[in-house]
């Protein structure tokens, strides 16, 4: 995405020139013609950089800088001052006040662009670290960052241990999953919980956002699920409990999408409820199915989307959820995934990986083992995104019905 620059000058001709020149350099340009306007726009747009004229009526550039530095949202926005050639003391004063660079008027547009790029390059990392610093408060220091890094590493290790360490064993099924986190800690998770009656409960979830806040919520949901799944037998009731818990404990914009379901090896069924999560894909070889049941050989591969359930969990106390029971047949595959898969973007044209590609990938790999299907789809996805950095957590869980149910 193009970077946004806020240009501030009381001389409208200069603003016009700046806007045209920066626009043609590929920046988004916002303009303000006085200090108050500048502060308002800096707060509402949070630009990547501010070009600030020092001498303005009403409120001068120094006051603007002072004001921006007191607000956590605008504190880290780099500022390049525009000054008249003679005012050396002002340059110093501006740099003291926290400006990152200055350009003297009349300025050369090429030089200005070069300065902007240099400052943006220098301050880019700060843009990402700053929200953390804000959260850590004023005791922030180099030691603080080192400590934070160490804590993050520990947190990532704890979280890794909360994921299944080995595929679950369930007679008649081949099951596996993978999770590739985009940051050290993750908001995605999946879990397998063996229940007392011999069935297996399975969950895949995607907590809103990324990083530490998402990871905290993930740990909370996983823990709650492990308790609730033994109290409630219906998946919809389990999800409703989690929903109500999150509604009480968190703000509405913190939520999770999830599919919780129970695989019953005796009846060869999967009963689930889907809380606003990407629909798992249930592949049935209709030919095999019909042959087994009706002795018919025609039919083709069908994909059924597991969409029954309700809204995202954790935002609304009025959310209600429903169950669906799916009859499985030997040879069937269910693919669970998070939107990090379908919304992964290609480096060359930002095209999404998308559900169609995912459907093709599962169709062509369905005869492999669950572990190999995960690996094949992951490889296909990584190949697709190319040089682009992975931006969201990716999770896949594959369930395959492998052998006929034993009659007892």
């Amino acid at each position, binding site marked *: *995405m193009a970077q946004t620059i806020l240009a501030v000058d009381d001389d409208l001709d200069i603003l016009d020139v700046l806007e045209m020149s920066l626009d043609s350099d590929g920046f988004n340009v916002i303009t303000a013609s006085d200090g108050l306007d500048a502060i308002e726009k800096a707060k509402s747009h949070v630009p990547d950089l501010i070009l600030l004229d020092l001498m303005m009526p009403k409120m001068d550039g120094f006051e603007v800088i002072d004001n921006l530095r007191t607000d956590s949202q605008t504190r880290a926005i780099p500022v390049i001052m525009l000054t008249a050639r003679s005012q050396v003391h002002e340059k110093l004063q501006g740099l003291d006040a926290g400006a990152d660079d200055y350009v003297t008027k009349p300025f050369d547009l090429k030089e200005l662009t070069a300065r902007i790029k240099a400052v943006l390059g220098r301050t880019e990392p700060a843009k990402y670290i700053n929200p953390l610093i804000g959260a850590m408060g004023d005791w922030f220091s180099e030691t603080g960052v080192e400590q934070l890094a160490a804590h993050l590493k520990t947190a990532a290790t704890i979280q890794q241990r909360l994921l299944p360490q080995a595929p679950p064993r369930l007679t008649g099924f081949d099951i596996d999953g993978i999770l590739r986190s985009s940051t050290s800690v993750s908001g995605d998770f999946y879990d397998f919980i063996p229940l007392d009656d011999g069935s297996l409960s399975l969950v895949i979830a995607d907590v809103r956002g990324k990083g530490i806040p998402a990871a905290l919520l993930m740990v909370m949901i996983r823990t709650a699920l492990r308790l609730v799944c033994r109290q409630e037998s219906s998946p919809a009731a389990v999800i409703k409990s989690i929903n109500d818990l999150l509604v009480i404990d968190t703000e*509405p914009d913190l*939520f999770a999408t999830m599919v919780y379901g129970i695989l019953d090896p005796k009846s060869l069924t999967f009963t689930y409820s889907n809380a*606003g999560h990407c629909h798992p894909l249930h592949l049935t070889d209709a030919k095999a199915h019909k042959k087994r049941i009706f002795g018919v050989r025609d039919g083709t591969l069908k994909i059924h989307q597991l969409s029954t359930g309700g*809204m995202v969990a954790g935002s609304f106390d009025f959310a209600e959820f429903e169950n669906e029971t799916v009859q499985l047949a030997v040879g069937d595959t269910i693919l669970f995934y998070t*939107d990090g898969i379908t919304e992964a973007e290609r480096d060359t044209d930002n095209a999404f990986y998308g559900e169609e590609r995912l459907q093709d990938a599962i169709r062509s790999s369905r005869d492999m083992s669950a572990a190999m299907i995960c690996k094949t789809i992951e490889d296909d996805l990584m190949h697709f995104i190319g040089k682009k950095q992975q931006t969201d957590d990716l999770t896949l869980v594959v369930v395959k019905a492998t052998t006929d149910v034993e009659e007892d």
Partner: protein
Amino acid sequence: MNVGIRRKEGVTVLDIEGRVIGSESFALKSIIDDEIRSLQDGEVKMLLNMGQVRAMDSSGLGIIIAAYTSIQRRGGRIALLNVSGNINSLIVVSKLVTIFDRYDDEEKAILSFHEA
């Protein structure tokens, strides 16, 4: 992401453009919060024009959910305009279709705020 603010017959229309994704979407949250704060209780009528939104993720969705909740709490109403493609799938899959009214015609959308 860019957000334009218009007022039309008592309705605040936010024209959202670009990617409502991750930290890029935080600006939208503060704009919505400011709008809600600046208006009197019960008078918040907000229409989010999503026609130029290229992509939205769960953070973006969270912002719209939070907006819904806080506007609802104040007795106001929020609706969506020109939701299509990926954004529509996101709202359908997350089953938020049940709480968000969606319109493809701005006139009709604006009118709906006055019928209620």
